[in-house]
């Protein structure tokens, strides 16, 4: 059986890649996709712990994370559409009206 550490290291790597995507990309849709990647890395951790601790709670939490991620994607994409209507751009750098 694959040791638990391997799964933890793998999901930490995926989470880090997603965080880099959130920080460096200049396209709102790709930023949202990177957030989905981070959520999936956390899901992988939950499932791995659920398997190695022999408890079903991790899998239930993953189902809830999927529901929340679906809601987050829907609202995020609706906001992106709304912002694009106003500014004709998807660059988060240009959305600084509230920046001091």
């Amino acid at each position: 059986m694959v040791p638990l550490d391997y799964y933890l290291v793998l999901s930490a790597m995926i989470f880090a890649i997603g965080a880099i995507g959130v920080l460096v990309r200049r396209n709102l849709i790709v930023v949202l996709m990177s957030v989905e990647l981070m959520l999936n890395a956390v899901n992988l951790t939950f499932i791995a712990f659920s398997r190695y601790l022999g408890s079903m709670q991790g899998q239930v939490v993953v189902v809830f994370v999927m529901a929340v991620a679906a809601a987050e994607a829907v609202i995020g994409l609706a906001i992106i559409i709304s912002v694009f209507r106003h500014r004709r751009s998807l660059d988060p750098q240009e959305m600084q009206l509230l920046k001091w």
Partner: protein
Amino acid sequence: MDLSVILFFVLAGLLVMSSLMVVFLRNVVHCAMALVAALFLIAIFFLMLHAPMVGVLQVLVYAGAIMVLFLFVIMFLNPNTPEPRRKLWWGFGSLAALLFAGSLAALMTNGESADPMSVAEVFGSPEMLAKSLFTDFVLPFEIASVLLLVAIIGAVVLAKREP
């Protein structure tokens, strides 16, 4: 080295590669396709970790519904000029489809399926997930349904064309 460890490393390499493609590719549609690949690979990991129900949900909800929504918004917002189609990809796609059909046919013809009752109570089965979901986690379940309703209404209100 164990066979499952080798399988883990192959899948992990593919997963890291497709995640890097999500973050660093320039074309947004290519990013979305790489994300679909990453989600499928994570679903395979779920299957390896005895979570078949969650793996199926991952493919249906994430790689299916959410990614269709992403692609819809991508094509809605920035219609790139269509690239010229390359023959190579047609060949590659047909080859992959043929391999997939061949493996499916092999499974359907000679696969003696196990007795469903014997695998019903193993760890991670849909029954165990449902028992846990509808006994210990009933309140979060109901809250999640309210959350989804709020998300539906919010998306309609946000994306509606202003009068």
